[in-house]
Every structure is written in structure tokens, then in C-alpha cells.
């Protein structure tokens, strides 16, 4: 029987500096690790510890996995000190991803904040892979400042794509910023979607998720059509260690993707 606690070795092929606090690590695992978009992995710094990340790369890219990681705690601090060529470990994938087929023939509104764009990038790349299956794809992305925007190199390419609409805002603009200024929820006022025919996919810091969800509800989106990628302290990845409890769920096996309908009555969901 496979040991769920053991990891596959992966080489760090490339490190892309996104912002002063965020780096994308391009990982090449010894054996390929197929995943569905929205599922997460445990990234192990051998002998140090592990932390959960949702890959930011497309699941169609089978030989490498990218993880976009913000320096936020003990393990991520260590990860940021890693250099190209070093070996780390990957366990997983774990949990349930986005139910892509349910989104066919719908307008897909993606709402991301900060480093929360990481799982959404994987999601977006998955949609773009079969872009004709979706009525519309709209990406609303907010960051603190223009400097804090991740995937700066990808946006110009994405903007050229015909099936994708992009709106971006920053909380605090600089003199070169020509897009929206304000929190990401202001973008939602600009987007007119067909409510009966749409889904909203939200990921970002808890406070952003809270207000984005609130705004979507105000605008008439149904809780069952709002998909949230929840963050908790996922550790074992297989629903046993208890650290990622969210009400009766364990985020690691029942999530990390939930509809707002599923979790709206659980206390402290926006922490």
C-alpha cells in the first residue's frame, strides 16, 4: 500500500520573482504528479516541514508543477531561501478541485486578490485549454499596488486572447497605473453577467473573499454558484490530522473548493 505520508522528490527548475514577497517555483517531480485544477499539494522542505499550496500551473502540463508562494510563515520563509537546482518534496494532490464540467456553457467570473491568483491562474489556464466550451471568461483581479501584481509577464499575453476579459484594480495606484483604483469588489460593479447562466470563482485573502462574496450576493449571485477556494492549516492532506477543520468538513479532503452554499453557516469561515 502506498504510504500517504511519503513524498516524491522534485527539482526546483526555475524561480520567478513575482513581487518582493512572492515567488513562483517551477518544480520538476521525479514522477509526474497529475492533478485536477483546484487540488493542492503539500510541498516538503526535507527535514524542515511542509505547507499546502494549490499549483498555479495548468494541469495539462504534466511534467512540471508551479507553485506561487508568498513569504508568510516558518515553512514559506525556508522555501524562499531555496535556490534553483535544489530538491524538495511533493505529496498529493489532495482534495477536490473545481468541477469544470459544471461550468460548461456558462459565464465564468473569476475574482482574485493578491497571491490568491495562484490557484486561479491554474483554473484560468484550464478554461483556456477548452475556451470554446465557456460562454464568457472574465477575470477580475485586485492587488495592493501595481508592484504587488503577480504574473506580470502573463497579463499582456492574456489580454490578447479573444475569449477572456480582464479587469484589474489596485488599492493604491502609482502615476503609471491606467486601470481601476480601489478594492477588487469595485470591478464587480463594472461586469454585467447573466446571473442565471454564470458562476463566480473566488480566491484571495480572507478579508477579500468575505467582501467579494458579500458583493456577489448583493449583485444577485446565488450561494450555490459561488465557488470559494478555502485556506486552512492543511497538514496530513487525507482528513485525519484535524488541523484544517471547517465545521464538519476537512478542507484537505472535502475542499479546498467549496460553494458558499455549503459553508455559509459555519462560524469563523472568513478567518
Amino acid at each position, binding site marked *: 500500500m502506498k504510504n500517504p505520508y511519503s513524498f516524491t522528490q522534485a527539482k526546483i527548475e526555475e524561480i520567478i520573482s513575482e513581487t518582493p514577497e512572492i515567488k513562483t517555483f517551477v518544480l520538476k517531480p521525479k514522477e509526474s504528479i497529475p492533478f485536477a485544477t483546484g487540488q493542492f499539494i503539500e510541498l516538503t522542505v526535507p527535514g524542515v*516541514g511542509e505547507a499546502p499550496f494549490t499549483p498555479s500551473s495548468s494541469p495539462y502540463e504534466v511534467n512540471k508543477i508551479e507553485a506561487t508562494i508568498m513569504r508568510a510563515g516558518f515553512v514559506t520563509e525556508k522555501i524562499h531561501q531555496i535556490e534553483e537546482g535544489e530538491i524538495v518534496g511533493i505529496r498529493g494532490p489532495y482534495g477536490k478541485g473545481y468541477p469544470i464540467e459544471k461550468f460548461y456553457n456558462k459565464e465564468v467570473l473569476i475574482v482574485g486578490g493578491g497571491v490568491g491568483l495562484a490557484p486561479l491562474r491554474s483554473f484560468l489556464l484550464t478554461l483556456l485549454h477548452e475556451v470554446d466550451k465557456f460562454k464568457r471568461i472574465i477575470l477580475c483581479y485586485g492587488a495592493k499596488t501595481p508592484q504587488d501584481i503577480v504574473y506580470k509577464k502573463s497579463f499582456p499575453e492574456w489580454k490578447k486572447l479573444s475569449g477572456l476579459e480582464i479587469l484589474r484594480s489596485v488599492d493604491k495606484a502609482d502615476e503609471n497605473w491606467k486601470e481601476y483604483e480601489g478594492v477588487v469588489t469595485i470591478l464587480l460593479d463594472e461586469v454585467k453577467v447573466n446571473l442565471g447562466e454564470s458562476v463566480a470563482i473566488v480566491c484571495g485573502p480572507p478579508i477579500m473573499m468575505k467582501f467579494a462574496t458579500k458583493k456577489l450576493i448583493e449583485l444577485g449571485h446565488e450561494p450555490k454558484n459561488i465557488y470559494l477556494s478555502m485556506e486552512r*492549516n492543511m497538514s496530513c492532506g487525507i482528513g*485525519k490530522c484535524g488541523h484544517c477543520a471547517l465545521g464538519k468538513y476537512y478542507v484537505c479532503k472535502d475542499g479546498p473548493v467549496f460553494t458558499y452554499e455549503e459553508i455559509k453557516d459555519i462560524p469563523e469561515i472568513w478567518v
Partner: protein
Amino acid sequence: MGLFSEYDLYGPKGVEGGWTYQLLTKDNIAQISYENYKYCSIDPVKIFFSPVKETVTDNEEEGVSSKKRVIIGLKSCDLAAISILDRVFLSEDLIDPFYKEKRENTILISSDCLDAKESCFCTEVGGSPFPEQNFDLNLTLLLDNEFLVEVGSEKGKVLIEANKTLFSEAKEEAVQKREEKRKGMKAKVKERNEVFSHRVVESFQDIIKVKDDSILWKELSEDCVECGACTNICPTCHCFLLIDSIQKEKFFKDKTWDSCQFNGFSRMAGGADPHDELWKRFRNRYLCKYSYKPENFGFLACTGCGRCIDACQGKIDKREVLNKVTSSQ
């Protein structure tokens, strides 16, 4: 008996304040107190399947293997706990091979309770002071050195077959006698708990779910010192921490017991913590046992063993907490 050569045998040994499970040897087996092993041991059954600390790194030399074991004397509340542990560690495709190995290699010989301690409340959470599930063999003491044996599984049957000379066909009156004893013991536990007006636990599940009463939970958790004794001693609490380390250039991952009562248990990178206050952690233990687990598994994650009541440094009686929560509705 030939059991010693094939199995590690564990049995209850009397110590101050109760019994603990000890590895039996030919030298100490005489000191093992079966005939006065009255109610559950101090140590919960989970120590046999999810030990306090174990290494879960792949180890090519040893693999995942454990010697076959027989645990003798287990009480009904611990057997009930195995249902929870099995659901957690053997669920669907998410099997923990370390647990599985130990579980499969263990024979469980249980026994009826001969008495109840003050904190026993199995009858209030749907249980009984006699085993009804999860045993391979069950022993009911009828007279000195006379036991009625019930076979609960194939494993138990094989054990009987292999030691046939020790057993004879049970007589109807022995079964009758067992029923009388059981009835008496159940009545005793019920009587112990009469002071607690448990509006039993099915209703608790509904009540606790709609309730987000921070004032009540703050009051209820006032005496909690966050020692984690309740979760450590609980036979159904299964939460653990994974710890990575390097020893002599080899990587290790250890699984150690953890407690949702500890500050930081649910803290994420960046510092956000859904259970950042004591009362939230305290409430979580009740929600987990009486609401979340029943919703997920269809049964409570409390077997009424009362160990958490005995172990609590703040003298918090869980039954009183349950009462207060349900009656304040």
C-alpha cells in the same frame, strides 16, 4: 497457551487509580487483574493503533509491519471508539497504512464491565457497559474462573478453534445469567447519571448547531487550562501533528498526538486562526464529538468512557457542559 509465541499479549494491570495496559510476560501474567478489572483502563484503546508518536517515513529496511497482538479485557466504551478510529483512518481511499497494519494484526478480547466509576456515562450516549460491537471474543465473568465467551468475528472463531480444550458449549442458563448481570450494570450506570438531565444527544446535535453563543461558551470554558488532557485521554480523539526532521542525513516524518485545545492548532501561515480564542477551541471539542462526527459518520464521537472528566485539571464535567448547553436553549 501457545499465544505467547505468536502474539504480543496486553492485559490490564492494577495501578493507583485504575488499570493500565501492560505487555504480558510469563512472569507478570499472574499479576494481571482480569477478575477485578471493573471498568475502562486509564489508557485509551487508541494507544494500540495510533501511538503517541510514530515514524511514518518510508523505511525500506523495516517496511510497515507490527507483531501480531492480542489485547485482553477491553471494555465496551473503547470498542465503540474503534468505530470512530476506523472511519477516520480506514476511510474510502484515504487509508492510513500504519493504522491499518496494526488494526489487522490485533485481536480484541473484550469484557463486560463489573462496576462503573463516577464519571461513566456510556448509557447516556447510546452505549452499554457490555460489548456489543468490534470485538473478536468477549468474556463475561459469571463465577470465579467461569466465563461466558461470545464470538464476534472470524478471528475470534479461529482463536477458539485453536484452543478448543479450554472451552465448552455454553448452557442456556449461563446466557440468562449474563443478561441479568448486564441489565443490572446498565441500570447502575443510568442511575449514576440521573442527576444529569441529559436531553440526549440527538437533540444536542441540533441545538448546538444553531447556537453561536459566545457568552455561554466563555463561561463554560472558564476553568479550562488548555492542558490537552481531555483530548489525549479520549479514545476517539485522533488529531495529530506531522513533524519533519533530519537525523544522520536521513529525513524523518513523525506523527505525534496533537490537540485542538492547544493555541495555534488551527493557525495558518500569516497568523490567521479560526480558533484564536480559548472558548472557540473548547467549543470545537464539543462540536466535533456531538455534531460534526455524527453528521459525517452517523454516530457520536463520544463513548461515555468518562476519562476526560477524570483527567480534567479544571474539574470540568462534560456532562454538566452538555446539560448547560442543551438547557440554555
